[in-house]
């Protein structure tokens, strides 16, 4: 990495030692950052790296615990978004707060001075959007607009305040590639006018393409400041995921058994314009093996999970085999009946119903696979609350779930405890195949290590486990073998002991070996028996 030191004077925005504590947890710790006039500055980092916390402090939504912010060389305190706008900072949020039933002009008018007549706002918005290549009809209803057009409203709304710095939070995560290209043209135009852009992203390719400088965050600290054009995707990825991987304490993996889940040549077209197309994925996981799937977010992890779990069955039944049986077209419950268990990424609303009790959530996921135990009365399917409650209690004991009350609502648990319950709910069945997506996302360290240990234990007991994760620490902690997903393609699996960070960084950056993927399953026992 080439360190380009920003000149001390002339910075539009300079941050020194900015720190934000939530309780004792430092979401941002001693962050230094300088943004020059007329530059597009990337803020790179994985989920949870502290990017959002940092920009919220810059936009006055959060107040820093320590450190200072210099605007045009003068120290400032930004108490509210209104004060940020007064200084000349505009922000485009990732999730829009637009009114669908109202027109574009009406939406903009709601956040403007009520004295300005609507017709004038419409006129200004139209001319501004035209000037920046963001065509918008001020009289169109938001309901009729695409996501990209909705984002333009937010950008135009920010531009109407004539800002010197515009912060964009993951703007392309909701855009199609064509819409993203248009957005980049607008950003270049802003830069040519001397405005600065702080561009938050975890997409390396984009950052390399459009940004002049990049600051990389990891675990709330700056791990690098560089000119992204002078870096490789691998070196950027390494800065993002870090090189301080904890030493792995794990006993030798047991001998691996039969292939329990076998994915051959799995291709799934993208369901929405924002989804990733899965291409010719091949994957075999044996009894006793933890297969970790690494990758930068948004490269097809969610789509792969959906295909493996049967949430969205795939066209080719033979593409996925569970314990020898073709299940590609089988739904979740059919796969569960074959002994598989699944834990999706989102805890609330996907893995659990927040307003329902733990025992109800247990019944919801296992009403088919544990029908004999949980339901009685045959066709009438009467719920056996006593059995289910004692099962929920057992899960809580085994997984050390801290909760208030006997059978509280899922939403009342902390993220870590709910995640322990959700994982425990599957482990309780002793599934022969377990697929988990981001098992410890946003979970405290104690719960995370409890969950990781239980995944290792499950594999040791003879199950096949697939862990999809963006956390390399986690991957090296649990994995027997590691495959990397990038742009919907899965690399061949590598024994965790043999894979270097350099290599995994290259794979995450999308550089595959010619012999690697293309659906060729690994040779029997390849890598699997390597001990650490």
């Amino acid at each position: 990495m080439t360190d380009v030191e920003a000149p001390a004077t002339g910075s539009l925005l300079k941050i020194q030692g900015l720190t934000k504590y939530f309780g004792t947890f430092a979401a941002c710790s001693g962050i230094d950052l300088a943004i020059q006039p007329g530059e597009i500055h990337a803020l790179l980092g994985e989920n949870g790296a502290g990017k959002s916390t940092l920009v919220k402090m810059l936009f006055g939504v959060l107040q820093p615990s320590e450190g200072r912010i210099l605007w045009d060389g003068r120290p400032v305190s930004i108490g509210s978004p209104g004060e940020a706008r007064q200084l000349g900072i505009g922000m485009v949020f990732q999730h829009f707060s637009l009114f669908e039933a109202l027109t574009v002009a009406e939406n903009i008018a709601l956040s403007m001075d009520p004295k300005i007549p609507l017709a004038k706002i419409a006129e200004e918005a139209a001319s501004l959007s035209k000037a920046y290549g963001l065509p918008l009809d001020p009289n169109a209803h938001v309901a009729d607009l695409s996501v990209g057009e909705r984002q333009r409203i937010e950008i135009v709304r920010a531009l109407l305040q004539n800002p010197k710095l515009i912060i964009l939070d993951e703007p392309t995560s909701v855009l199609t590639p064509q819409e993203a290209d248009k957005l980049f043209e607008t950003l270049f135009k802003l830069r040519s006018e001397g405005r600065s852009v702080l561009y938050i992203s975890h997409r390396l390719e984009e950052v390399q393409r459009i940004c002049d400088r990049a600051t990389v965050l990891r675990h709330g600290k700056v791990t690098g400041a560089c000119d992204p054009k002078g870096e490789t995707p691998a070196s950027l990825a390494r800065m993002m995921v870090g090189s301080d991987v904890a030493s792995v304490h794990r006993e030798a993996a047991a001998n691996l058994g039969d292939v329990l889940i076998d994915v051959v040549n799995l291709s799934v077209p993208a369901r929405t314009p924002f989804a990733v197309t899965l291409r010719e994925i091949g994957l075999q996981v044996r009894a006793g093996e933890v297969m970790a799937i690494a990758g930068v977010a948004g490269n097809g992890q969610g789509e792969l999970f959906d295909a493996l779990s049967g949430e969205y069955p795939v066209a080719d039944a033979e593409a996925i085999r569970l314990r020898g049986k073709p299940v590609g077209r089988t739904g979740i419950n059919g796969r569960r009946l074959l002994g598989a268990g699944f834990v999706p990424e989102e805890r609330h609303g996907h893995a659990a119903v927040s307003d329902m009790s733990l025992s109800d959530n247990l019944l919801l996921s296992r009403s088919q696979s544990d029908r004999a135990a949980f339901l009685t009365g045959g066709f009438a399917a009467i719920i056996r609350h006593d059995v289910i409650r004692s099962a929920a209690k057992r899960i809580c004991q085994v997984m050390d779930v801290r909760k208030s009350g006997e059978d509280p609502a899922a939403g009342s648990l902390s993220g870590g405890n709910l995640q322990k319950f959700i994982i425990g709910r599957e482990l309780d069945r002793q599934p022969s195949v377990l697929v988990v997506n981001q098992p410890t996302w946003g979970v405290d360290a104690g719960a995370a290590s409890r969950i990781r240990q239980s995944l290792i234990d499950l594999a040791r007991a003879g199950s096949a486990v697939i862990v999809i994760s963006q956390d390399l620490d986690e991957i090296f902690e649990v994995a027997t073998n590691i495959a990397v997903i990038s742009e919907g393609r899965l690399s061949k699996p590598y024994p965790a002991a043999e894979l270097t960070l350099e290599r995994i960084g290259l794979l995450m950056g999308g550089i595959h070996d010619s012999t690697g993927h293309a659906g060729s399953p690994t040779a029997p026992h390849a890598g699997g028996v390597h001990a650490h």
Partner: protein
Amino acid sequence: MIEAILLTIITAATPLVIAAIGELVTERAGVLNLGVEGMMIMGAVCAFAGSYLTGVPLFGVLAGILGGALFSLLFGFLTLTLVTNQVATGLALTLLGLGLSGQLGESFVGIPGVKLSPIVFPVLSDIPFIGPLLFRQDITFYLSIALVIGVNWFLFRSRTGLKLRAIGDSHGSAHALGINVIRTRYLAVMFGGACAGLAGAQLSLVYTPQWVENMTAGRGWIALALVVFASWRPLRVLIGGYIFGAVGILQLHAQAFGVGIPSQFLSMLPYAVTIVVLIIISHNRRTTLINTPACLGKPFVPDR
């Protein structure tokens, strides 16, 4: 003959239009008040009492408006401050209104009331046919027209109306923009109550100038249906109100002429038409999104 029929249609349509335009504003702010029938009957009994006790029918109109608004305040307190279920509370309001009005009006039963006198526009009222229809009406008719035009202007031309629509569309986003959701909703609910009260006053002071228990006879429900029929657009309330009013009157005439359609069939027509309209508008996702308040009936609790 035709003039006489048209006059009765106007008289029948006016309370529907007034009650519906009030409920439209309430619903545009995202509050579903099913208690229109109850607020209307409270307006009717208050209006009759006001007119009878003061001897001035115009005070009766004011009493009706006040009675409806105060009664809706109860609904507002329950649903907005105590965050009770809007549907259940609205139904309870109707039942309470029907019972309470019967109690309050017990001593008025059988007393002949004073009819609200028409306001006659000189010259204009002498135009043949149109004159007596449009320019020799009582104040409630003129108010109904003014309300439709005024509400239409308020909702789609004024900044306050824009805020009200924003609240109905997404109260969370509106709150984030610094708009006072609860206060605006209180005012919208009370405007709906005042309109329902005025509609009730029209019934007991113009339509049949006397007090009869349950004299609203389901008109509150027709007004509710009318709001949906109009897909939350004020000018369509006016059109729909006259269609619904005409159906009700023609049904009486059809009976008199011995037309072989059962009267029950004609009385259900407004509801049947509303169901058809509902099917049509929900078929088109776009019109639904743009006109139906997305937060309709959803409780709002700030800071959660």
